């Protein structure tokens, strides 16, 4: 395995639904993502794009095969170890922002770092830095219900970056936003990824967005093929 891969799939099988007609999404998927590259996965609904992302995020386990994150095999890791892995190596951005409504913008960004063991001061400093980076420095103390949809998604992005992960996993990050805000968030995401040298695995319906990454892959019949 190359030292510079952040994500690897080896012989991954995944299906769901037992009984009469189980659905097989992947049977023997082999694929890897190199460090510093951004890849977009497109495909029709139901092909398993999100499941692919969840397996990369270690939120779901494959039925068979291996998923390696940062060179580490994840199949035999327990919840605790997986948590540590996620904290250090992964940043997740979802279609829905999942901000905590009881906490302000800066608190939402700082908390994952603080919970991961970073000191309170360091976590808050980094959070402020990232919120400024996404252009919301005058919204630090605002609560989610006081932010627009686009602003919330930007905070979610800042949160994904707070632990300085090597790999960002984004599932339809702009799916809920109108055109103008979507564009702004897309610019921000790609800019951050390139500037900070991170890897990105993006799942999206938006082909224009997808084409702005280094490589576009189409998921069909359990296989990833260049678009």
């Amino acid at each position, binding site marked *: 395995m190359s030292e510079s891969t952040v994500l690897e799939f080896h012989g991954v099988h995944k299906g769901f639904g037992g009984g009469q007609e189980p659905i097989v999404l992947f049977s023997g998927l082999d694929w890897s993502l190199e460090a510093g590259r951004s890849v977009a996965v497109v495909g029709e609904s139901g092909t398993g794009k999100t499941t692919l992302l969840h397996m990369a995020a270690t939120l779901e386990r494959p039925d068979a095969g291996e998923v390696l994150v940062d060179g580490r095999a994840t199949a035999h890791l327990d919840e605790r170890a997986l948590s540590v892995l996620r904290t250090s190596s992964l940043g*997740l951005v979802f279609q829905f922002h999942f901000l905590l409504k*009881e906490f302000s913008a800066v608190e939402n960004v700082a908390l*994952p770092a603080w919970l991961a063991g970073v000191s309170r001061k360091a976590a808050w400093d980094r959070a402020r830095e990232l919120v400024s980076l996404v252009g919301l420095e005058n919204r630090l103390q605002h609560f989610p219900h006081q932010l627009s949809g686009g602003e919330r998604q930007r905070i979610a992005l800042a949160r994904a970056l707070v632990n300085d992960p090597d790999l960002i996993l984004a599932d339809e990050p702009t799916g809920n936003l109108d055109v103008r805000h979507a564009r702004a968030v897309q610019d921000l995401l790609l800019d951050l990824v390139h500037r900070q040298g991170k890897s990105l695995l993006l799942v999206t319906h938006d082909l224009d967005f997808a084409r702005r990454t280094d490589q576009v892959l189409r998921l069909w019949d359990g296989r990833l093929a260049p678009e």
Partner: protein
Amino acid sequence: MNIRPLLFLAGRYLKSRRKYRGVGAPLLSLVGLAVGVLTLNAVLAVMNGFQLTFIESLMELSSSHLRWTPGDGKPDAAMQSLMLKQPGVRAVVPTTEGQALVSTPLGGRQGVVLRGFSPDTLKQDEGLAKHLGLASQAVGVPGFPAPGQVLLGAELARTLGVVPGDNVHLTALTGPSFSLLRPQTLDLVVKGTFSTGYYEIDVGWVIANLDDSRASFSGPNDFFYAIKLSDGNADRATADTLARVTGRDRQEFTTWRDYNTAFFGALRTEKAVMMVLVGLIFFVVGVNIYFSQKRAVVEHREDLALWAAVGVVPRRLRAVFALEGFAVGVGAALLGTALGLLASWSFGSLNLLSSEAFYLPALPARVLVPEVVLIALACIFSSTAAAWLASAGVTQNPVAEVLKSE
């Protein structure tokens, strides 16, 4: 394992309840637990008050901590001073205990417990003097009787219609053996009365002069030395020491435990039963907290899935919910304990009981710190455990399901 971020989370969730879901549930649980803590503290304080003051009086007046009975029934000054020298021994008082009939010229008559004390007893055993109400040197306080004098319990004097200065007769049978028992009567002057607060003693005791009692009324086993200790629980150990030091047979020493086992057993049982019954409150509120917290876990489903997704171990999040239970428990313990102590202290000054039903003028209340702590800990434990158990739902939500459902 840094607890501070968890505290931050728990605190914020508790605060935000007020805005979103109403502070009802945790507040009600807190009040319920506080009621339990308050009740237990107040009830136990009163039970302790009754029991401890009674036990103390029992120790001081009646059984004393230890007794040494000389085999020949005669005083032994050397033994007395030897025993007094031992560490932990507060007082050694020669005395007799027997039964007699007291009667008045007007025909009043009663069977009484006859105790014989010398006037020195006032100095030798201040505890005894205090419990008899004889300790102060004020005018009207009689002190222990000289030969020819007696003291009557206040209720006894009232029943017999006798005042200080009157004469009474004491009659008993004395003799070396059953077949040689002969009646003996003494005519004595009532020097004064004593009052202990215990009806049985105030209506049933007569205190005579030690020499009178020994000469006229006492059988061979009635004379003994009443030994008081600084630590009542050291009775057996001290008895062993005294037997060793004085070279006497250990059987000659008897401890208060030997006398009163059934009584103390009964007291212990009553307290235990009361604790169990009122302790049900903790269980009932614990159930309440359990279901409330389960609800909270469900409501925070998304949050929890998110935390798991960004890498926080679910177990740590359980602590957040348990902390809410802990906070409720601590709040209730503080509130309930404060109120319970307040109630206990006010019992002593309020005349809550009608004197027809109860002899005592006021409710005695004694707070035992270990019990207060135990009650508080039980409160905190039940609420924290209930919340912790309820938080098990945290680990049961499959993250991906929750994320997908949005």
